[in-house]
């Protein structure tokens, strides 16, 4: 007897059904259209890299989460862990062929051997936008305007873009004489401020610093008030880029109410050197949906060229979750907008109708079998197809067809050559 294999997928991975994919495609398409509108081009890098390319950068923690294996020739390979390291390798490898500054976006799956949880998968999508080869602050301004445009294009009513400067953080840390070797740990703790609150952060800081220093530090970075008030308060430590950046954002038309100066924001990763950003959606308990910043030396591992850049990563799966929770993805249909039913005697009319609709750019499909009409209707219903067209012998004889609008249950008989006009002009309220 033939044995049947259980149709299962590895832990932390997902199948996407058509009803999932139309939503994902809808969101991706909107995001991509903003990137393209800003003149960014797409690149791709292989899912597989040499393990040493990837492992070098992340240290022990990253190495534990990287999927590695030996190929048939005994070479040690790794699955892409993020898009930043492959991008650095890509820029180093193609440096002489790339126009500088180089603007690219990249959307691809990455793999991490992490413990799966809500919103955390072993295979998930990253969506990165970077400008490299310039240290102009205009690049920061453009990236932030692009972030705002993405959220607006996706119809988020509210979003907050927090920003800070690593230079400000460094100035504060040096003023308080916090030694270099503890700075990285201190920054990691400050990053948790929003998550765990002031008291717990102070507790953790006191393990590394004197009580007085810890309190002074926390007081310096956990400010409330307007951007200007915070800037005034930090005047002594403030690097000039903060106000220059705000001026540029203003000229770029970034909605001012969405921009929040957050002096405690650090973005843990130590390769950020200048401004850092983090965007979130109020009312959704998900953490940031987009984050990034300025780095001074993207390719140090792969190239003697010192390449500065600024970029952000959109958390595509988090954005999908947020939009689902806020009911922003209801009413998105599968691709077919029209089902042309099957009538044995008038099949050639049905074929002509479906051809004409497709030519007019209306996504349509033909029912393939001589089933009862009720069964054909049920199929349209199950796929959520909004229009059904019937052309029986009576209609065919007069060059007409019946169009049924499924949502309102109304049927109309109109000339076949006007079906596409009707469908293109149809206004759904």
């Amino acid at each position, binding site marked *: 007897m033939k044995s049947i294999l259980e149709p299962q997928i590895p832990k932390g991975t997902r199948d996407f059904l058509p009803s999932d994919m139309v939503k994902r495609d809808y969101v991706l398409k909107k995001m991509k259209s903003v990137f393209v509108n800003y003149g960014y081009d797409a690149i791709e890098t292989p899912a597989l890299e040499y393990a040493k390319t990837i492992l070098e950068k992340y240290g022990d923690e990253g190495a534990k989460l990287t999927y590695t294996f030996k190929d048939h020739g005994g070479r040690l390979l790794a699955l892409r862990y993020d898009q930043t390291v492959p991008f650095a390798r890509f820029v180093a490898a193609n440096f002489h062929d790339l126009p500088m500054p180089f603007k690219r976006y990249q959307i691809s799956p990455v793999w991490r051997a992490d413990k799966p949880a809500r919103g955390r998968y072993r295979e998930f999508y990253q969506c990165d936008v970077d400008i490299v080869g310039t240290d102009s602050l205009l690049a920061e301004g453009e990236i932030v305007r692009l972030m705002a445009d993405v959220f607006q294009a996706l119809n988020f009513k509210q979003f907050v873009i927090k920003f800070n400067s690593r230079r400000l953080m460094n100035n504060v840390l040096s003023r308080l004489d916090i030694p270099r070797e503890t700075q990285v740990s201190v920054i990691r703790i400050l990053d948790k401020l929003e998550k765990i609150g002031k008291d717990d952060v102070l507790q953790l800081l006191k393990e590394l610093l004197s009580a007085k220093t810890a309190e002074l530090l926390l007081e310096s970075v956990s400010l409330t008030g307007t951007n200007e008030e915070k800037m005034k308060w930090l005047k002594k430590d403030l690097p000039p880029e903060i106000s220059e950046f705000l001026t540029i954002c203003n000229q770029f038309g970034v909605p001012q109410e969405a921009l929040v100066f957050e002096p405690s924001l650090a973005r843990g990763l130590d390769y950020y050197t200048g401004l850092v950003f983090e965007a979130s959606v109020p009312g959704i308990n998900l953490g940031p949906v987009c984050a990034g910043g300025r780095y001074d030396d993207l390719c140090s591992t792969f190239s003697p060229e010192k390449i500065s850049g600024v970029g952000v990563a959109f958390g595509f799966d988090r954005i999908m979750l947020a939009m689902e929770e806020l009911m922003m993805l209801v009413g998105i249909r599968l691709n077919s907008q029209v089902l042309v039913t099957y009538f044995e005697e008038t099949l050639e009319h049905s074929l002509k109708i479906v051809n004409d609709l497709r030519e007019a750019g209306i996504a349509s499909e033909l029912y393939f079998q001589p089933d009862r009409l009720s069964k054909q209707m049920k199929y349209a219903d199950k796929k959520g197809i909004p229009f059904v067209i019937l052309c029986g012998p009576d209609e065919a004889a007069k060059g007409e067809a019946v169009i049924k609008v499924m949502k*309102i249950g*109304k049927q*109309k008989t109109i000339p076949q050559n*006007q079906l596409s*006009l009707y469908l293109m*002009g*149809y*206004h759904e*309220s």
Partner: protein
Amino acid sequence: MKPTNPLRIAVQSNGRLSEPSREYLRSLGLQFNLNGRTLITPCENYKLDILHLRDDDIPEYVSREVADFGIVGENVVREKESRVRIVKRLGFGFCKLVIAVPEGSPIQSVNDLEGERIATTYPHVLAGFFRENRINAAIIPIEGSVEIAPSLNLADAICDLTQTGKTLKENHLVPLMTIMESEAVLIESMISRHEKLEFLKL
């Protein structure tokens, strides 16, 4: 001929608002001589050029600041959805945008429009009306002679401008409802200039 004055106003070159628009400008004390087919008329006693344009183009010209002001039907302003400001309603060029159906049509109320075909030269205004009234229907955009659409089985109803209702009647159409009351309006671009403020004091 090139415009030479610092201020420009666009008016309809040839249509139902042309003559009343010129009369309105004269009523402000402006003097000008219409010279045959010239499309730009300078005022003799004010630093203003009058541009004679197709009315459909006026909102766009004003929003792009090619002209500082324009005189045009409110119906056109609404349909073009251009970024302009309505300064004032001018009290002439009254008309209505109505939905009309053939005599004896089963369509007798707004809700009967559900799923039907409505031919119009005002697809944006009509779509807004449908949105507000939660009507699902097919808008058939055509450029002119809308009244003929039902008799050609191109549409079940029409949405068109009417002043006296005469054309509707001649085509055996009955008005069902008015979706917009319109008159000529003075519009201006969104930027402010002191020359504009001076003109508005006339």
